[in-house]
């Protein structure tokens, strides 16, 4: 029986010719990632276990992104603990304020992750790098500690669901609408423990930012990872960017998939996930009576340059509706710089929005846009659980940057036309 892309990458990193779904393996890691929330727990465990030194200071990435610039004294202490650890272990990929970005936008952009990699990250959205043709999955802090010490992790080889894409997305739709549609179809545990393998002629029409967004939210369907084949778009993105040589894996022609789901991209419509689950999806056109207090455009899901372009396309020369707070957060310093250079920054401010330095901030109810009881937000982030962005009685609707920006102009959920 043939192997999927994921299974091939795992087999290669376990030093095996073949693997089977369900098989427990120990695999070599190309990169181990942590952030300012998860790294302190990992450092405590690392020190408690007295590992002494890391397996390779060039294969560990520590990104301060959730609560920086430090939101309070406790957050400052956590950042300091990460900084001290990175310094004492000579961690080359340590990203502090001024260089940092939201980890899952930053690491692909900076070429720290590449095709064929096997990556763990102490952050659930580590599955984002599957867009590059890597195996990449979220773990906890203890796994991060063990990974930093040994350069290895154990995995149960996942079975796969194939998402076969055809057609071309309508102009007012993006990767976010695709992944929300899929999660709405299969549910928040529809791919539990499995890999989501995207294939088909529709892949070619999806940009890297679309693919990164789609893989980012694989976890919201419970998946272990999401993965795209490496094509000309991927190669063009990686060329001159990646610090290590990409390794391209292809699924075998007779790879086994538990299920194949067909998605015609031409039939995708602007889609919104209603409170309080990412699977609770409806067309934006069915939600025009939902009044909003806040709009957030940013996050590891949708803080990339194409997301900023969509926000600019909708907002420039217009005015955010009275009573609506519109918060735009470019995900990395490079994206922020490009927003300034292209005039987006000024256009956003002129429209009545605010622009923040990169941070995860409001996505997880950290800071920079917390909701009061009864308030409603449309957000390009990834989760709309109870209390996710603030008070337990607040509501979050998940949408694409174009839909979020169009909603900012009307004050009600509105799709771009």
């Amino acid at each position, binding site marked *: 029986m043939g192997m999927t892309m994921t299974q091939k990458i795992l087999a290669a990193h376990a030093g095996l010719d073949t693997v089977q779904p369900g098989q427990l393996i120990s695999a070599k890691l190309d990169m181990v990632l942590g952030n300012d929330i998860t790294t302190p727990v990992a450092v405590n465990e690392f020190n408690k276990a007295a590992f002494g030194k890391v397996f390779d200071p060039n294969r560990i990435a520590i990104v301060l992104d959730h609560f920086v610039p430090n939101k309070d004294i406790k957050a400052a202490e956590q950042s300091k603990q990460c900084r001290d650890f990175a310094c004492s272990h000579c961690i080359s990929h340590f990203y502090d304020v001024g260089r940092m970005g939201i980890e899952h936008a930053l690491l692909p952009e900076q070429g720290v992750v590449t095709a064929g990699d096997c990556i763990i990250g102490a952050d659930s959205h580590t599955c984002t790098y599957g867009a590059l043709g890597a195996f990449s999955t979220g773990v906890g802090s203890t796994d991060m*500690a063990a990974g930093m010490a*040994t350069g290895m992790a154990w995995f149960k080889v996942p079975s796969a669901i194939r998402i076969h894409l055809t057609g071309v997305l309508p102009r007012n739709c993006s990767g976010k609408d695709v992944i929300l549609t899929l999660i709405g179809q299969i549910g928040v545990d529809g791919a539990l423990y499995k890999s989501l393998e995207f294939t088909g002629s529709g892949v070619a029409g999806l940009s890297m930012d679309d693919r990164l967004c789609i893989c980012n939210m694989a976890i919201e369907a419970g998946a*272990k990872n999401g993965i795209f084949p490496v094509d000309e778009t991927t190669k063009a993105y990686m060329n001159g960017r990646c610090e290590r040589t990409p390794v391209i894996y292809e699924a075998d022609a007779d790879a086994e998939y538990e299920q194949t789901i067909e998605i015609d991209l031409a039939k995708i419509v602007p889609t919104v996930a209603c409170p309080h689950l990412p699977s609770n999806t409806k067309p934006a056109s069915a939600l025009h009576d939902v009044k909003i207090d806040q709009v957030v455009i940013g996050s590891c899901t949708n803080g990339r340059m194409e997301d900023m372009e969509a926000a600019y396309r909708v907002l420039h020369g217009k005015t955010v509706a009275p009573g609506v707070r519109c918060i735009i957060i470019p995900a990395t310093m490079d994206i922020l710089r490009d927003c300034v250079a292209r005039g987006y920054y000024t256009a956003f401010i002129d429209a009545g929005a605010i622009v923040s330095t990169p941070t995860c901030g409001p996505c997880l109810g950290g800071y920079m846009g917390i909701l009061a009881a009864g308030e409603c937000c449309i957000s390009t982030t990834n989760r709309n659980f109870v*209390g996710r962005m603030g008070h337990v009685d607040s509501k979050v609707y998940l949408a694409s940057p174009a839909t979020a920006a169009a909603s900012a102009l009307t004050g009600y959920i509105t799709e771009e036309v």
Partner: protein
Amino acid sequence: MQVKGHVFKYSDNVDTDVIIPARYLNTANAQDLAKHCMEDIDQNFASTVQPGDIIVAGWNFGCGSSREHAPLAIKTCGAGCVIAKSFARIFYRNAINIGMPILECEAAADAISAGDEVSIDFDAGVITDLTSGQTFTAQPFPPFIQNIIAKGGLLASLEG
């Protein structure tokens, strides 16, 4: 190993944001986290849970964030076990890695009621509802995972 306690019951898709809201993640101190455990779904949990008490829930327990703070908060509260129909994969992995006992058992999750007194024999994988008199058998862990649990967590297992 055995535990015995009263049951706190929750539904499907209990996510890590309600287990430990992100507004408290500016610390890794387990005692501080435990004070806010389950706060956004059950304000009384942290103040009333007793050592050995048991959480019983539906499908996909622990979905969402990778925060290990979630099983750590539950463990530090003194809860003896989480029984669910299924677990989100990162929570499952984290719970095992830090030595927080969990069991998958659909029948038990359906039948056991909030407030019931339940005992669990982990060696046999048997769950007994002492209030209703019913017994259930949980899915056994694969031997590889049993080894991590027996050694007291992932890092202890690496030390051989």
